[in-house]
C-alpha cells in the first residue's frame, strides 16, 4: 500500500534529519523523504502536522512470556502493547519455560509472531542448555531458526570455564553474546540495592560489587575470546566506569540500561512498593546520575524497556516475595522523551537510544528511515500529556512503578513494514 505521511517533523537520528518533511512509502519500504516520487498516488494520506515521524522503536529486552508463562502475558497482548508503544522490533530474552534453547521453540515463537503480523520479534537464544550454565546450546542451529544473539537472561553462569567456552564458540561464528552482570553468590536472596534504603527497611541486599565482579569477568573473557559482548541492564556507577574504561581501551563492547533505572532509585521503594521490585535492583541516586552521564557520553549505547509483565498475584506480596519486573513497552517512548527533556538532549539524540543504537547492537538494518529501508515508523505527538493508568495499558502486565505519573508524548500511528498496524 502506498502511504503518504504529510507535514510531520521527520526525525531520523541515523541520517541526522530533523525537519518538516513528507515521507512516502510503497511496497513496505521508504521510497522518498521530501520530494514526491514521480507518479506516486497515495492510497492513504496521514496528516502528521504537529506530530513527530520517527523510526519505529527497537527494544532490546521485552518479555512476551511465551512459551510457559501465559498466565502472566501472551504474545497477543504483548504485541499489541508493543505497537501501542511505537515499538516495531523487539528482542525477547530466553527466560521462557522451557527456555529458548531449542530451534523448534524459536521457530514456533517466530511463527506465532509472524501470524500476528505486528511488531518484528527477534528471539535471543539461550547461551546454555536450560539456562543452567553447564552445556552449550546448538547456537548455529538456533541462529538458523531465527535467534539474533545469545543470552542467559537473569540466570548466572557460575562456572567461568563454561562462560569462556560459550564466548569462544559464539565468537567462532561471529554471534553476539548478551549478558547481565551479576555475581550469583553476592546476589543470593538479595532483593534491593545494598544501601541506605535496604538498611533502613531490613531488606536482603545486593551489593554493587555483585555487578562489578561479574562485569570484570565478562570484560576479561571478551578480550580473551574476541566475542561481541553486549552488557545488559547496567545499574551502578562503578559498572558504568568499568565499561567506560573498557571502551577507551578499544574493546568492542556495547551496553544498555533499562528505562526504570534512568528514572528511579532505591528511594522510590518507599514503604515497600513491590512495583519497585526490579532486577537489577534500583540503586542509589548517585548511581542513577552516573547512568545518565553514561548515556550522555555514549558509554551506555541504548535504553530498553526491560518489559516484564507480572501477574497481579505475584506482585501483591511482601516486597521480597514479590516477583521482579515491570511492564514497560507502552512507557518506553514517553520515558525516553522525559529523560531527553530532563537532560537537555535534542529529540533526535534522545530517540537514537531507542532506534539506531539498539539496531546496531542487534546487527539489524533498522531504526532509520533511509530510502529503501523497511517502513517501520512511529508517529507520535510529543507534547500531549497523559497519566499512567495501569488499567488502560494494553499489556497484560499492569505492574509499573510509574502508576499515576503524568508523562508527555503519545504514539498516534505505528507502521511495520509499511503496514499501518496501530492508530489512535
Amino acid at each position, binding site marked *: 500500500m502506498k502511504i503518504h505521511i504529510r507535514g510531520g517533523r521527520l526525525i531520523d537520528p541515523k541520517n541526522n534529519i530533523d525537519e518538516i518533511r513528507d515521507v512516502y512509502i510503497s511496497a513496505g519500504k521508504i521510497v522518498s523523504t521530501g520530494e514526491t516520487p514521480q507518479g506516486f498516488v497515495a492510497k492513504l494520506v496521514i496528516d502528521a502536522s504537529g506530530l513527530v515521524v520517527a523510526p519505529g522503536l527497537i527494544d532490546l529486552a521485552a518479555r512476551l512470556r511465551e512459551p510457559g508463562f501465559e498466565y502472566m502475558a501472551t504474545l497477543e497482548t504483548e504485541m499489541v502493547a508493543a505497537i501501542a508503544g511505537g515499538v516495531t522490533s523487539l528482542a525477547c530474552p530466553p527466560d521462557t519455560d522451557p527456555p529458548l534453547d531449542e530451534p523448534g521453540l524459536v521457530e514456533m515463537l517466530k511463527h506465532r509472531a509472524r501470524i500476528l503480523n505486528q511488531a518484528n520479534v527477534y528471539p535471543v537464544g539461550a547461551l546454555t542448555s536450560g539456562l543452567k550454565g553447564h552445556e552449550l546450546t546448538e547456537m548455529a542451529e538456533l541462529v538458523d531458526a531465527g535467534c539474533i544473539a545469545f543470552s542467559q537472561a537473569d540466570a548466572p553462569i557460575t562456572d567461568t570455564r563454561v562462560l569462556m567456552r560459550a564466548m569462544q564458540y559464539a565468537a567462532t561464528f561471529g554471534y553476539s553474546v548478551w549478558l547481565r552482570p551479576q555475581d550469583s553468590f553476592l546476589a543470593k536472596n538479595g532483593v534491593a540495592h*545494598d*544501601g*541506605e534504603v*535496604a*538498611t*533502613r*527497611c*531490613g*531488606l*536482603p*541486599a545486593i*551489593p554493587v560489587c555483585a555487578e562489578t565482579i561479574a562485569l570484570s569477568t565478562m570484560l576479561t573473557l571478551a578480550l580473551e575470546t574476541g566475542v561481541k559482548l553486549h552488557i545488559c541492564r547496567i545499574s551502578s556507577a562503578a559498572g558504568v566506569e568499568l565499561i567506560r574504561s573498557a571502551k577507551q581501551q578499544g574493546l568492542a563492547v556495547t551496553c544498555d540500561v533499562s528505562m526504570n533505572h534512568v528514572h528511579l532509585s532505591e528511594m522510590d521503594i518507599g*514503604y*515497600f512498593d513491590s512495583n519497585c521490585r526490579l532486577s537489577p535492583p534500583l540503586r542509589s541516586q548517585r548511581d542513577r546520575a552516573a547512568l545518565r552521564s553514561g548515556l550522555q557520553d555514549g558509554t551506555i549505547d541504548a535504553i530498553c524497556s526491560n518489559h516484564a509483565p507480572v501477574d497481579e*498475584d505475584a506482585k*501483591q*506480596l*511482601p*516486597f*521480597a*516475595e514479590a516477583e521482579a519486573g515491570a511492564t514497560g513497552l507502552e512507557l518506553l517512548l514517553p520515558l525516553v522523551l522525559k529523560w531527553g527533556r530532563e537532560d537537555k538532549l535534542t529529540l533526535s539524540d534522545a530517540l537514537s537510544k531507542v532506534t539506531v543504537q539498539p539496531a546496531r547492537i542487534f546487527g539489524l538494518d533498522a531504526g532509520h528511515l533511509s530510502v529503501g529501508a523497511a517502513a517501520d515508523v512511529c508517529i507520535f505527538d510529543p507534547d500531549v500529556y497523559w497519566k499512567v493508568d495501569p488499567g488502560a495499558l494494553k499489556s497484560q502486565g499492569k505492574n509499573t512503578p510509574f502508576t499515576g505519573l503524568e508523562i508527555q508524548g503519545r504514539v498516534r500511528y505505528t507502521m511495520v513494514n509499511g503496514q499501518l498496524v496501530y492508530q489512535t
Partner: protein
Amino acid sequence: MSVNNPQLNKDGKLHHLLTTEGLPVGIVQEILDRAATFVDVSDGLDINNVPLLQGKSVFNVFFENSTRTRTTFEIAAKRLSADVVNLNIGESSTSKGETLMDTVDNLCAMHADMFVVRHAQSGAAHFIARYVDPGIHVINAGDGRHAHPTQALLDMFTIRHYKKEFHNLRVAIVGDVLHSRVARSQISALTTLGVPEVRVIAPKTLLPTLVENMGVRVYHDMAKGLRDVDVVLMLRLQNERMQGAALPSAGEYFKYYGLTEEKLARAKQDVIVMHPGPMNRGIEIDSSVADGPNSVILAQVTFGIAVRMAVMSMLAGVSK
C-alpha cells in the same frame, strides 16, 4: 490513611503501629505515658478491671512462630477485656497455596478490630495494613529484619523508668544489627526521643551497609564502644549466623562481643543492661551479667505488657 505516613490517619492520630521510624515524638511519649498508667494493672493487681477494649476482638496473626511475643500480646489484650483469637498461620495456609491476600481477606471477613501480625518478610505489616478494611488496626509484632516497634517502645519505657530522661544518655546496641528488626526499631526510637549518642557494636559482618546514616556511631571494639555508656541493649544472636560465614564460632563471638562483667566495667557504674529475649547465655551474654545487679531484663518483660496495652487502647481510640 495518610499518604506520607501509613501509620497515621488524616488527623495525625495513630491508626496502625508498623514501625518506630517516622513516628512523631508526641505519639511515642503518649504511648509511654499511657503505659505508665497500666503498670500497676499489669503487675497483676486488677486483672480484668480495665474494660477499655470490651467487645473488641484482637487477632494474633502469626505467620512466624513466637510463643513469647504472642503471649505478651494476648495478656495485654485480655487485661483490656478484649476477645483474643490466636491464629498460628505459620506455614499452614501458605503451604496450602493460599496467598497472603487471601488470608488477610478471610481474616477481615471474621470481623476483627485489630490484627497483631508477625511475618518473616520485611514489609509484611505495611503490606497487610495497606489491604485490610479501613476499620481494622494493624500492630506489627515483627516483620523480617525490618521492625519490631512494640519491643523498641517497651525498651524506651524501661530506659525512661530507670534513667528518667533521654537527652543526656549514651546508649550502645550490641550484636547482630544486620538481621535485627529490634535494633532498627530501637535506633529510630532512640533518635526520635533525642538520645544524643547511639552506638552500635558488632563485627563488620553483622552490620548493614551505611548503618551510620541511621544516626549511630559504629564500633567494632566492644571495650571502646561500652566506655561511659548509660544503657546497653544486647541483641540475640541467631545460631544460623555461623553457617552463613558471618561468624567463625560462638566461642570467638563470645570472647569479643559477649557481654561479661569485665567488659561492662567500662560502662557507667549505674548502667542498665537489657535484652529482648530469649537470651543465649554464654554466647552474647554471660549469666553473671544477665542475672547481675545492672540487668533489668525481667522488668522489660513486665513493662512490655503495659506498653502493648497502651498501644492497643490508643489504636482503639479509647481514652482512659
